[in-house]
């Protein structure tokens, strides 16, 4: 088990990267403490899988270092890094039984058979595979196979971290929840560092203690699920997390304050001068109907269960707000108010006057 540090990591799949876009990973400095549950969250093609393969050693980064407990492991192959990985599509050794599958990593390392047996029995118990130990692995369902993949990681005692690469992609929706809870439970039991890659915010937010949000090859924010929701550091985070995502509206800056649709908007932060793009960000949860404020017109209302999602038009821009079921929704013209302490100014995408990303 180990603390994982990524230092000055950059990677490109091209031999001579020139443009910014040539880099799959732009610049990464991260520090993951031992035993944590982390998620790497981002849209497809943002570099999550690249990062994961660099950590596991399947890929050597173009620049930078990976340190386990302060030791440089950058040039080491996967088998010497003591890493386990669960892949998007279940990998099982078809010809072997479930038992032999679980025993495989141990036998490859020459562990004595008596110890293999006790480890396999223990891990099979944890992953609910005991009843199937003597079955052929090929005959199992997708979620059973993913449990085997996971089990092969857990069975080793020398594992520094377990990496998950979108492990629930091929699992039936009704089993996803079960398997996710199982993962969470296992994490609490074994206290190994787990890094979970996904593009699904629900998976990331329910699994991880800390979520790393990535976009086009860089980390935009690292934080607890609550921090990501309450204090998005970047408009991308605001938009990507939450359903529906944050309203991001163009604005002007006058004396460090935002002016949207001709009106001054109270915000929790102050803008600096000199940004090219100024925006106001406010979550649909933090917009409400009011007697005074911005002039708006209700365009559409859709029922999302306990909430109604109201789409309104304000100063030529469309924005959404969440209204609890049962609350009255004005028809046609109305006035809107943003909750000042939850409203923020973003400049060139980033939160104005923010602390650093980490």
């Amino acid at each position, binding site marked *: 088990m180990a603390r994982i540090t990524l230092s000055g990591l950059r990677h490109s799949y091209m031999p001579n990267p020139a443009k910014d876009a040539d880099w799959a990973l732009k610049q990464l400095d991260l520090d993951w403490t031992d035993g944590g549950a982390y998620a790497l969250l981002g849209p497809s093609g943002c570099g999550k899988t690249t990062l994961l393969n660099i950590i596991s050693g399947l890929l050597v980064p173009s620049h930078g270092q990976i340190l386990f407990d302060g030791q440089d492991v950058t040039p080491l192959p996967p088998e010497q890094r003591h890493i386990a990985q669960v892949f998007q599509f279940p*990998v099982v050794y078809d010809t072997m039984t479930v038992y032999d599958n679980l025993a495989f990593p141990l036998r490859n390392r020459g562990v004595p058979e008596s110890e293999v047996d006790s480890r396999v029995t223990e891990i099979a118990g944890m992953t609910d595979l005991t009843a199937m130990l003597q079955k052929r692995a090929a005959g199992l369902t997708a979620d059973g196979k993913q449990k085997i993949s996971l089990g092969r990681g857990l069975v080793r005692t020398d594992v520094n971290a377990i990496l998950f690469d979108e492990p629930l992609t091929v699992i039936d929706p009704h089993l996803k929840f079960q398997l996710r809870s199982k993962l969470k439970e296992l994490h609490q039991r074994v206290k190994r560092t787990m890094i979970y890659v996904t593009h699904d915010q629900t998976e990331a937010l329910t699994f991880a203690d800390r979520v790393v949000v990535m976009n086009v090859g860089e980390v935009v924010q690292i934080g607890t699920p609550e921090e990501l929701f309450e204090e998005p550091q970047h408009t991308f985070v605001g938009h990507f997390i939450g359903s529906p995502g944050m309203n991001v509206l163009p604005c002007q800056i006058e004396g460090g304050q935002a002016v949207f649709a001709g009106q001054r908007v109270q915000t929790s932060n102050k803008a600096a001068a000199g940004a090219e793009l100024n925006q106001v960000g406010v979550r649909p949860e933090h917009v409400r109907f009011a007697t005074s404020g911005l002039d708006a017109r209700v365009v559409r209302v859709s029922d999302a269960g306990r909430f109604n999602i109201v789409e309104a038009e304000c100063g030529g821009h469309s924005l959404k707000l969440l209204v609890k079921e049962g609350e009255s929704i004005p028809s046609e013209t109305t006035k809107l108010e943003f909750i000042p302490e939850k409203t923020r100014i973003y400049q060139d995408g980033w939160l104005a006057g923010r602390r650093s990303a980490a």
Partner: protein
Amino acid sequence: MNKTVNQKAWFLVLPVLVLVAFNAIVPLITVVNYSVQETFGNNVFFWSGITWFEDVLRSPRFHASLGRQLTFTFTILAIEVPLGVLIALAMPRKGIWVSVCLVLMAMPLLIPWNVVGAMWNIFALPEIGLLGKTLNAMGFDYNYTRQPGDAWFTLILMDVWHWTSLVVLLAYAGLVSIPDAYYQAAKIDGASSWAIFRYIQLPKMKRVLTIAILLRFMDSFNIYTEPSVLTGGGPGNSTTLLSIDLVKIALGQFDLGPAAAMSLIYFLVILLLSWIFYTVMTRDEANQ
């Protein structure tokens, strides 16, 4: 559920049935017909029962040909299958060399069979052939037209050259269909190259290898053109395989009855052995 029962659809199968009848069923029945009759010429036939079958099955000549045939088939299988798998494993999976390798591999398969025979016939001639002359220059006493051992060596070499590619292409197709994640998982699990072969590559190649073995078995058991052009069954009878013997009896001696009986036995042997191969090789899957 209401299903419409309409037996008229069977008429749509008729054209195929007619076609199959003319190219398979009618010739086969003709052979069966010959195999149970005796003739003394003038197109007059007498019923002779199963005497031809008894004759063929007791004939030392048939036993010898069958023995040679089995030796040939199992020798080339024992060489071509492992060799084909080895070459497939060594071939690149990515990059421009893939197509180069594939074209090179497909080349022998594109050459007409009698041309293959003629090529090797000349190639191996001891006085003027590149192979024959080289071997003799190196001090081997090599002459495939006189020495049975040399004839066998040339015959097997020719078949390996001609047909290993088929095994390579099939095995390669099996190999490239293995997702990268399997190799990555095996690396992480600390598997050796042998373990990767044994537990990932071989199981994933199993289906295509089954097909490769069956195809090579049936084709090599039926082989006629190439050995007939290369050695014509000689020297003596040393490379007279079943098909060559059959042609000698049927067209050389014009013994239609024994030749027909032999064809049917030949056919049943292939059918039986193919069935055994298939059953053994797919037994595991049936157990699941």
